[in-house]
């Protein structure tokens, strides 16, 4: 995927207008690519990537992130993770493996924990996304954030946003009944530093505290 510099919402609607000429260019290139055998398209992909992308039609997307509604125009191949990090400059959500194997990119969509690296942004139309940046209430940290600090639930911190998002969902789902259950239902969040025992302690503590989270 092309890496764009994180700039504040470059793709919010109202950006550079697309004229009729641009549209014509798009449709002719689309036709050209469609006529190529798939293998050739793949081979050409490496060089064509950046250029061709500009010609593909962008799609409108309206999505609420941490309580703010964004009206965007995006390429269909943009993942939710890249949208958050590269276009909305919300870099709290981490990219670990980018293939569903580590959990670093965990966010909530309509209250459910999902992997943003395997979610296409266009498929989030009308949905409510919560990221690590949306948890604190002003200066007051979320109880799960407090608990991770209190129990030393991290070392390098790279997996932590994903762990926290996942931990909150784990309690809400009713899957934090015992340390064993927490371990099983947190198994989608890998921690290279091995902070697991303290992560389990932090989640169990919040669960025991009984606050609404």
């Amino acid at each position, binding site marked *: *995927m092309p890496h764009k510099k994180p700039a504040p919402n470059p793709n919010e609607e109202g950006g550079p207008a697309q004229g009729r000429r641009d549209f014509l260019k798009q449709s002719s290139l689309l036709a050209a*690519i*469609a006529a190529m055998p*798939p293998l050739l*398209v*793949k081979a050409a*992909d490496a060089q064509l*990537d950046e250029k*061709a*992308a500009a010609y*593909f*039609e962008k*799609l409108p997307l309206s999505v609420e992130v941490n309580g703010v509604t964004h009206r965007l125009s995006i*390429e*269909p*191949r943009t*993942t939710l993770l890249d949208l958050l990090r590269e276009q909305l400059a919300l870099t709290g959500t981490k990219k670990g493996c*980018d*293939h*569903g194997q580590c*959990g670093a990119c*965990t966010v909530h969509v309509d209250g*459910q*924990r*999902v*992997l943003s690296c*395997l*979610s*296409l942004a*266009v*498929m989030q139309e009308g949905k409510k996304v919560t990221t690590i940046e949306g948890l604190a209430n002003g200066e007051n940290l979320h109880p799960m954030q407090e608990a991770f600090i209190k129990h030393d639930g991290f070392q390098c911190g790279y997996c932590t946003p994903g762990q926290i998002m*996942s931990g909150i*969902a*784990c309690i809400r*789902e009713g*899957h934090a009944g015992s340390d064993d259950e927490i*371990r*099983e*239902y947190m*198994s*989608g*969040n*890998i921690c290279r530093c091995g902070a697991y025992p303290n992560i389990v302690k932090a989640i169990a503590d919040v669960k025991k505290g009984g606050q609404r989270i």
Partner: protein
Amino acid sequence: MINFEYIRVATAKAAVDALVKDGVAQWIAGGTNLVDLMKKGVTAPQKLIDINNLALKEIKKEGSKLRIGALALNSAVADSELVQKEQPLLAQALQAGASQQIRNMATVGGNMMQRTRCPYFYNTDMPCNKRQPGQGCGALKGYNRMHAIFGASDKCIAVHPSDMCVALAALDATVQVTGPKGSRSIPFLSFHRLPGELPQKDNTLERGELITGIEIPQNAFAKSTHYLKVRDRSSYAFALVSVAAAVDMQRNAIRDVRLAMGGVAHKPWRLTAAENFLKGKEATEANFGQAAQLAIQGAKGYGHNNFKLKLAPNAIVEALKTAVGKS
């Protein structure tokens, strides 16, 4: 990932029509397998048809059968009280698969359609007949620790990676599909296929056939079921081998039993000979052991996966013991 067009459809008919019209299109449900494969360049559809707005999420009783819509989420099925009460084996198998985040995205239909996890299939620099027919099978003489011991061909020795499907194969589920030529119902064991000469074909669906749901007939197994998954770490990994066991006990005798294995073949592998042996017998470890030996007759290792020839029968015995409460 190369770019693609994207559309949404609202009905099964629109989904089928859109796919049939467009030879380069593919449906997307949870996306947990498809997006991954697209990122790796294993597949490159030029158009995605989002089927998530189809009304196919329901989990309900229909007469004596349990019906589950193709778009029901893996987590919704695993957590459903109805499923846990009537078909606990299915809930157990789903809970053993992937992670809660992935189960929150993955659908029943997508789970059935997921591609193999053979590392050669995933790596576009390697030869693979499934990805590119005629290239040869990299795993056959390569690193084949995860691969099949039953029903493979020299064209492909991959296994189907799903846990859910192993339970559905044991429970005699049927698959409801609708396509350009109308609707039909496929017995679960005829849904996935063996590689034979066509390893690129994972299943018996025709192009344009959409899975709308599955049905599980009523059974008397709910009290004695177990899904045993043996893997390299205790969770969040694909199965080396897995066993779905469902037993209907009458005092200490086995009135009826269903057994299927995962991680051993190109499709969920039903153990009919072992089932037939066990029917009417006492639930003893000796009988389980004999059944397991019957079950692995004809199994064949390819080198790195020879350990499965021992692991499989042991897993069968363990699963049966746990199912009937004797472990």
